[in-house]
């Protein structure tokens, strides 16, 4: 269980930008957040890294996508959302057998709430706002995970 903003990459150079985009062309990401602003922001960040992005407005939409056969390599999950929050959605997805990397992205302050969210089945947790360094770290871990499987 890892949380925080650990990342080892520095600013991306033009050459490494291209390499990273090429490596990530087949990775699919689901951004789950009730804020249109955050969805647009994360969508842009991720597309800069060459990722294919889909968005969902709440946890239930995310769970429904998986029920209908969608699959994603990475899910960026907000915590506080209407209808179904991120913690419940994460638990539901793990119960369904979803093994995608799930990263919590939220502005939670309380350590207890962060702990509960992690224990719902997150792989990592980052506080908002997500940064390019956070995404670099996540993608490095995702590529490691995919290489192991």
């Amino acid at each position, binding site marked *: 269980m890892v949380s925080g903003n650990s990342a080892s990459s520095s600013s991306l150079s033009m050459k490494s930008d291209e390499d990273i985009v090429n490596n990530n062309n087949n990775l699919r990401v689901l951004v789950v957040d009730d*804020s249109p602003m955050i969805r647009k*922001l994360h969508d842009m960040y991720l597309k800069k890294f060459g990722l294919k992005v889909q968005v969902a407005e709440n946890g239930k939409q995310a769970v429904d996508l998986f029920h209908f056969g969608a699959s994603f390599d990475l899910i960026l999950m907000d915590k506080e959302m209407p209808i179904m929050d991120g913690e419940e959605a994460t638990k539901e997805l793990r119960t369904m057998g979803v093994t995608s990397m799930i990263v919590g992205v939220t*502005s939670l302050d309380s350590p207890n709430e962060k702990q509960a969210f992690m224990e719902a089945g997150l792989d990592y947790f980052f506080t908002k706002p997500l940064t390019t360094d956070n995404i670099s770290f996540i993608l490095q871990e995702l590529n490691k995970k995919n290489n192991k499987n």
Partner: protein
Amino acid sequence: MDRNRLQHQVACMRRSLFDQGYLDEPFIQLEELQDDANPNFVQEIVTLFYTNSARLIQNIEHALNSRPIDFNKLDDHMHQFKGSSSSIGAKKVTNECTVFRDYCSAENAEGCSRSFQQVKQEYAILRRKLEVYLQMVRQAAVSQTA
């Protein structure tokens, strides 16, 4: 206004927004995301921030005027406002949101009301400054392509 002078003005205004603590790092990340394929990205995100903020401010006002005050609901709304403010690097607004949430945790209605006025004030100031700044950025972009 000639092109160089306009660009200089834009740069000075941008620097002052950071030096005076209105904006911080996440705003730079927004600017770095903008490119030729998405030339209005910063403006689009900021516009979404305004829309989101207007809704949340209304929700908070409503919650503050309700009796009894539901401090959990109040905190939820402010939590969302703080989240979106910090996502665009609205530093002073984010700080005032934190102060508000402290009063909320203590269920201090008067403290919440006072600090909410500060939140709204900082938001209004930032919005005015950003509107002027982004208009100058647009003018500078137009003058560059002319």
